[in-house]
C-alpha cells in the first residue's frame, strides 16, 4: 500500500560541501587542460608586469563612465563634423574609378619628380619658353587634363549648390 508522498527530500548541502564540489569539478578541468592553462598564466604574468592588467581593471570598473564620456566627446559638433568629413571623403574615394585614380596618382608623382628636378636646376622660364612648351606633347596633355578637370569640378560645384 503506497501512500501518496507530496514532498521531495532533496539533499541539502552545507556551504563547505558546495565549495568542495565546485573545487572538485575545477580540479578536473585543470588537470585536463594543463598546457593551455600554463600558457594563460604566463601571458597573465607578462601583462601584469607591464601594468596592463591594472589599467584594464580600472577601465572595466569605470566602463559606464568611460562609455558616456566617449559618447559625449564623439557627439560634439567638431567630432561629428570630422566624422562626416571623413565619411564624405571616404564615400567619394569609394566612388572613384580605381584605374583612373592609379593613373592620376602615378602621373602626379612623375610630375612632382620632373618639377623637383627643374627647381634644383635654378633656371628661369620666360613667356617665349612658355609658348614653346605648349608644343611639347607631354605638357600639352597635362594642361589639357587641367583645363578639363577645372571644367568638371565647376560643373559639380554648380550641381551641389
Amino acid at each position, binding site marked *: *500500500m*503506497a*501512500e*501518496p*508522498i*507530496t*514532498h*521531495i*527530500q*532533496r*539533499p541539502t548541502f552545507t556551504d563547505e560541501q558546495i565549495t568542495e564540489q565546485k573545487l572538485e569539478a575545477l580540479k578536473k578541468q585543470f588537470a585536463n587542460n594543463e598546457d593551455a592553462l600554463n600558457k594563460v598564466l604566463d601571458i597573465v604574468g607578462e601583462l601584469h608586469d607591464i601594468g596592463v592588467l591594472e589599467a584594464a581593471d580600472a577601465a572595466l570598473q569605470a566602463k*559606464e563612465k568611460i*562609455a*558616456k564620456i566617449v*559618447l*559625449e566627446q*564623439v*557627439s560634439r559638433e567638431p567630432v*561629428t563634423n570630422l*566624422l*562626416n568629413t571623413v*565619411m564624405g571623403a571616404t*564615400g567619394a574615394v569609394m566612388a572613384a574609378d580605381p584605374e583612373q585614380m592609379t593613373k592620376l596618382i602615378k602621373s602626379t608623382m612623375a610630375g612632382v619628380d620632373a618639377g623637383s628636378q627643374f627647381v634644383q636646376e635654378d633656371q628661369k622660364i620666360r613667356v617665349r619658353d612658355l609658348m614653346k612648351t605648349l608644343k611639347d606633347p607631354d605638357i600639352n596633355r597635362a594642361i589639357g587634363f587641367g583645363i578639363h578637370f577645372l571644367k568638371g569640378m565647376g560643373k559639380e560645384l554648380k550641381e551641389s549648390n
Partner: protein
Amino acid sequence: MNDSTFHIKINDVEYEAHAGEKIIEVINQNNIPHPQICYLPSVDPIQTCDTCIVEADGELVRSCSTLVKAGMDIKLDSVQAKASQTEAMDRLLANHSLYCTVCDNNNGNCKLHNTAELMNIEHQKYPYTPKVDSSEVDMSHPFYRYDPNQCIACGQCVEVCQSLQVNETLSIDWEADRPRVIWDDGVPINESSCVSCGQCVTVCPCNALMEKSMLGNAGFMTGLKPDMLEPMIDLVKEVEPGYSGIFAVSEVEAAMRETRTKKTKTVCTFCGVGCTFEVWTKGREILKIQPSDGPVNAVSTCVKGKFGWDFVNSEERLTKPLIRKNGQFVESSWEEALTLVAQRLGEIKSQYGKDSVGLISSSKITNEENYLIQKLARQVFETNNVDNCSRYCQSPATDGLMRTVGMGGDAGTIKDIAQAGLVIIVGANPAEGHPVLATRVKRAHKLHGQKLIVSDVRKNEMAERSDLFIRPKQGTDQVWLMAVTRYMIQQGWHDQGFIDENVKFFSEYKDILEKYTLEYAENITGISKETLIAIAEMIRDADGTCILWGMGVTQNNGGSDTSAAISNLLLATGNYRRPGAGAYPLRGHNNVQGACDMGTLPGWLPGYQHVEDDEARAKFEAAYGVPIDNKPGLDNINMLQSISEGKMKAMYLVGEDMALVDADSNHVDKVLSELDFFVVQDIFFSRTAQYADVILPAAPSLEKDGTFTNTERRVQRLYQALPNLGDSKPDWWIVQEIAKRLGADWGYQHPSEIFAEMASLSPIFAKANYETLEGWNSFLWGSHDGESTPLLYEDGFNFPDKKARFALSDWVEPYSFAEEFDLHINNGRMLEHFHEGNLTNKSKGIQAKVPEIFVEVSPELAEERGLEDGALVRLISPFGAVKLNALVTDRVQKNELFLPMNSVNKESAINFLTGPIYDSRTNTPAYKQTKVRMEVLSNKGKTPLPKTNPRDKKRHPQNGVEVERKWHRSDYIHLTTK
C-alpha cells in the same frame, strides 16, 4: 502547354506563368529580388505599402494585386517604376527611426531593413518625426509591446487579426492625422479582446510589435539603459551617413547575433493541430517563437504555442531520479534508479507472470518513444498490456472510422477543411482547443462563403460565428445525425451513385434508420423539425461537407456509435474520396495520433496491424525474437481493474497524470496506491507521481529529437533546441536503458534509427524516413504502399474489397442519475491552458490572463439560486465533490454548468466528480455524462476572471485592413496609374 499556362516578360526575360497568379508570385517563384513590404502570402493582398509597384504593359500597378496576363511585359526597374517604389519607401520611412544596430529586431530577418538595403535607399526624403509621445508605447500586455513611433502602418498585423486569426481586434485608424494601429476602439492592449495569438507580432516587418522576451535581450547592445541608448541613437543620426553605412554596421552586429541566437525547428505540443515553428534561444533562455513555413500553420500560432513555453525552464522541473525510501522521495543516480526499476519489474514478471506488468504510454512524447514503449511491452515483458491516453479521448472516434471507412485518421488535411462548402462541428470547441485549425474555418466562413453548423450544449466562439447553432440535449447527437441522414435519403438528397459504387449494407442501414423520424429526433434531442430540415438542406447544397468532432461526442457512453453515425452520414451523402469533405476527429494532444500509430494500444501493433493478424504478428515476432500474444491486452481501464483484483502488480507509466485525467479520481488514487511497484516518468512531480516508487525525470520536446504526428496524420520532425535540464533524459533513452538492464540491448544512437526500424515493419510508413522529413517537410500516412497520402481513400476504402461499410448501431441512452443530481456538468479546455494545466500554469503571463479555475453558471440558474459572480459553490456528484467560485455567463444555459479542466487541485479538478461510466465499445470514460447538485456557500465574491481576460470583450470586425480608407485620404497621392 494548356490555356492556363503562358509566358510573360519580366525585365525582358521570358518566364512561365499561370492564369490566376499575381505578378508578385511569378517574381518570387523565380527568386527575382523585388521590394514587397506588406506582401503576405497567407492572406489576400493588403496593398498598403506601394513598394511592390511595377510597370506592366506601360501602366504602374501593384504587383501584389495584379493578375498576370499572357504576354504581359513587366518592368521592375523602369524609371517610373523605380520612382514609385522609392517614393513609397520614403513615405514608410518617415514613420520609422532607423537605429538598427541597437534594435532588438536586427536579426537578419527585418523586412524593412532588408528592403531599404535592397532598394539602395541612402537618405530619408521625408524626415522621421514621432507620432506620439514615447509614453504611449503600449507595454500593457504580458507578452508583447506596440511602439506606434516605429510603426509604418503597413497593416499586416491588422490583416492577420481580421482575416487569418479572425479575432477582429486590431484595425488602423486611417482617418487619424498619423495613422497607427489600435486595439478595439483604442483601449490598452491588455484590456482588449486580443487572445494573444501573437500572429501580429510574427508578421510585423519591423520592431513596432515585439515579443517582450526579445526586448533588451536579442542584441549585443540592445540591453543598454536609456541614458546610454538615446545618445547613441542620436549620434548615429547626427553623423548621418547614407543608410548603407548604418546597414553595414548593423549587419556586422546581426552576424554576431547569428552565432549566439540558436534557431531550431520544432513542433508545438499544445494540441493536435501540429503547428511548426522555429524556437529562438540564447543559452537556455527562449527569446521567441517564430513561425513561417510550417505546412499546417504558416505564420499562425495560438497563445500557448507562441508564448507558453516557460515550463521548460521551470524550477519545478524534475532533474534527478527519485526513489521512495522510508516515506520520502530521495534523489538518486540514474544507475541506482534504472537498476532498481529493471530488477523489480523483472522480479514481478517472473514471479507473477506476463500479465502482472502494465505499461501506459503518452500522447505527448514522440513516435519513436511510443514505438519503444510498445516494443518494451511486447518484447521484454511479453505482454500486450500497453495503452495510451487516447483511451481517454479519441478511441471512440478511431473505432467509428475503423468500422466504416477502415482508417482511424482525418480524411484529409486542414486545407480540405478550409475548402469545404460546409463545416459541421459536433461537440468540439476548436477556437479554444485547436485554435489554429479553427482560424482556417473562421477565415473561410468570413471571406469565402463557407457555411458553418455547430452542435454543442455550450455556446462557444464557433457557435457564435455559425450560420446555425443547435443545442441538443446532452448525449443525443447520434439521434439528430441519424434523423438528418434518414430525412436526406427519404428526400432523395443522398448520393446513390456513390453508395452503389462504394458502400455496403445500405439496405440494412435504412432499416436501422427507420425509427429516426424527425418527430422522434425532436422529441429526444429537443431540436425542432424545421432546424433538422435546415441542416439537411445545408448538407444537400454544400460543395463538400467536413464534419469535425471532439470530446463532446467521444466522451459519452455512445461515443463510438455516434462517431460511426457521423461517418455514415458522410458516406450516405458522398462526402468521402473527394477534396473538401470527410470526417475529422480533432485529436487533442500533439501526438495522440502518433501514439496510436506506433502501437501503444492493447490490440494494435505499429502501423495499425492487429495482433490477431497472424502474418503481421509473425513479422514482429521475427524482428523481436519472441512470440507475441494473439489476443489484445488490457486497456487503461482494464489495467486499473486488474490492479484492484490483485492480478496486475506493477505499472510503468510515462507522461500521463492518470490520477487527474482518468475519470473518478478518488477511485484511481486508491487503485494506484495498491500497486506493488509503480514507475512514473514525467517532467514534473505530478499528482500521479506521488504514488510512485521510482520517478524518472524525462525531457520535454524542446530538449530532444524525434517526430510527432498531428490530427491530419502528418508526421513532422522536431529538433533539439536546448540541452537536457539537470540530469533529465529523453524518454527514448530511458526506455532503452531499462530494456538493456532486462537483457534487450537495442543500441539505438539516435531516434532516426528507431523510426527506420518502425517504418521497416509498418507498410503505411514504408517511404517515410528522417531525410524525407527534413526541415519543414512532412509525411502523411494513409496508403499501404507507404506513399505520403494527404487525402485518404482516393483508391477506395481500407477494406480488402475497397468498400466502406455503414455501421449498424442504434443510439445509446445517456447514463441516468438520481434526481437529486439536477445539474449537468460539462468540462473542456480553455484557450490559454493546456489540458490540466501543469505546463501552462508555469507561465506568468498566462496565469495573469487566467489566474484561477471557476465553474460557469447560466444567468437563469444564478438568478434561481441567488448567486453572483465569484460566489463560492460546492458541487457534489455521486463520486465526489469540488469547491470553487462561480462565473455567471450566458455561454451556458439553464441547468448546464461548465468546469474548465485546467486544475491540478483536488478541490477543483473535474475528475473528482466524474464517474465510472464508459463507452460501450472502447471503454473511454463518459466524462461528459456527469450530473451534480450545487450548494451555495457564499453568494458573491471577486469575479474569478480578471478584467484583462479577452472573454466577453466586444470584437471590432472589419473587412481586413481596409486600404481604401487610406486611398481616400486627402493627402494620399496615388503612385499607380491604373
